């Protein structure tokens, strides 16, 4: 008898707590109803990629010394460096360079390690193609600069959330001059104590460094 009553009590308790949690959940969804949509109407509006965005890799043929460091640091040895040894000058002669962006994971190791800075990351991310082989970029394709979102007349550029002023959530119709939340690296730099000697302070040379106390 008491076993049965206990069972009924447990059941009631379960039902009450379930109702409580469902009501709580309903409160959350109902609260979202009054919030503004955060939609970016993609082909017409685009977010401005952040300054550290790791997009399609840009390559400058003339700077390259064919050292193949990019190949060695690549997790899958992806870049193809096609060079021949010029016997008369005893120098490497670069003929072709290519990266297959259908395989690349955009880790940025090659850019990081390139001794001559001939590799860099762009903000291009629209790499859709009808044929995967067309994603294999040669040195000519790698040398092209992408269209910037801000300079494209057909696109309304929108700032990402961290680049908005404090308290602002909607990037639409925001003047381009409004500063973003927090201080820019230059502003941080100004607050730093000037080094007395001519020797460069490593902290001051690094624009991203936090102000020293």
């Amino acid at each position, binding site marked *: 008898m008491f076993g049965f009553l206990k069972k009924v009590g447990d059941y009631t308790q379960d*039902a009450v707590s379930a109702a409580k949690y469902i009501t709580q959940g*309903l409160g*959350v969804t109902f609260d979202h109803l009054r919030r503004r949509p955060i939609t970016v109407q993609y082909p017409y509006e685009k977010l401005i990629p952040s300054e550290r965005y790791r997009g399609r890799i840009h390559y400058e043929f003339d700077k390259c010394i064919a050292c193949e460091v990019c190949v060695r640091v690549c997790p899958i040895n992806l870049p193809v460096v096609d060079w021949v040894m010029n016997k008369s000058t005893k120098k490497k002669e670069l003929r072709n360079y290519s990266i297959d962006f259908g395989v690349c994971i955009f880790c940025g190791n090659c850019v990081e390690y390139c001794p001559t800075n001939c590799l860099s990351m762009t903000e291009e991310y629209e790499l859709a193609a009808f044929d995967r082989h067309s994603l294999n970029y040669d040195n000519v394709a790698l040398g092209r600069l992408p269209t910037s979102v801000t300079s494209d007349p057909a696109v309304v550029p929108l700032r990402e959330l961290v680049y908005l002023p404090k308290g602002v959530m909607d990037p639409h119709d925001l003047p381009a001059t409004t500063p973003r939340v927090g201080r820019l690296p230059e502003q941080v730099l100004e607050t730093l104590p000037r080094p007395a000697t001519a020797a460069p302070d490593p902290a001051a040379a690094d624009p991203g460094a936090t102000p020293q106390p």
Partner: protein
Amino acid sequence: MQTFVVVTPGLDLQASFLDLLDDFGVSQGLAHLLWLPLPMLTVLVSAVVGVLVNVWLERKISAAVQQRIGPEYAGALGILQPLADGLKLLFKEDIIPAKADGLLFTLGPVLVLVPVILSWLVVPFGQNLLISNVGVGVFLWIALSSIQPIGLLMSGYSSNNKYSLLGGLRAAAQSISYEIPLALSVLAIVMMSNSLSTVDIVNQQSGAGIFSWNIWRQPVGFVIFWICVLAECERLPFDLPEAEEELVAGYQTEYAGMKFALFYLGSYINLVLSALLVSVLYLGGWGFPIPVEWLAGLLGQSVDAPLVQVITGSLGIVMTVLKAYLLVFFAILLRWTVPRVRIDQLLDLGWKFLLPVALVNLLVTAALKLAFPGAFGG
């Protein structure tokens, strides 16, 4: 609680129509024949329009809950989007899979849709604003809704696809196990109003406006009924028969074009119908929160005056639809709040929780009816 019933004929379009034709010298039988298709067509059209509104609401509210915009290019605020979707389905190729059973495959969606539409027969929008005041009212609806799982099983079986078969079996198991608590909670209402007719059930709730609605006397029954109705409609906490992540689209997997549209239409008509029935059974149907008789008396008007009749009649329709769509809104909100239950949880909830609770509710109602015949319909 005082539940004296003031039955005013209200807006009776049939009688007015017959009188009008009688004035033109049309015989009684012919006039009746001319009248017959009118309410049927009206209800059929309004059911389909209700579905379009429902689909639009579903997409817009879902979008708002997820901080999206939702459809916005087809018509103002995307209001024509459901129409565009329907048109697309209409023009799509009608495919019957090569090794499917053609007859059952075609019959399945029809068997799902027809009982749902037929159930609109008993939905009242006013004292005389319904197709037919059938004496067995809600029972007819329960009986018709148990035809549906046969259609679902048919389409699941005939598709010759494992996902379809699983979906069909799940749909049948779900419908059958939730039919019982549903019927039991309806039975408690029926016991209080001493009638199966939907019109009588609403009239029994019309005494004191919002305070005489059944939801106050049957809160447990209301919750059980609402859960069961969601399960019958395969709405999200209970949408296992078409659980996308497991079963592709359940019994609808092999369907395309108009046959798929029939399923789609059926599920949304069923949702609107269920919301309407919840408002009829528990929320006072066409009743205004303040009784219109009082309001009319306050304004010094007779309830039987033609203008007042038209106003109260339209107010009744608006109230019924408003209540139903509030419930639809609630169902959509619930869709994005509650995760899908597992099949064993679903059957546990149906058999081990809802069924005993519904039985206890029925017994308590019976006891209360004997103890307080005034408040619980003697």
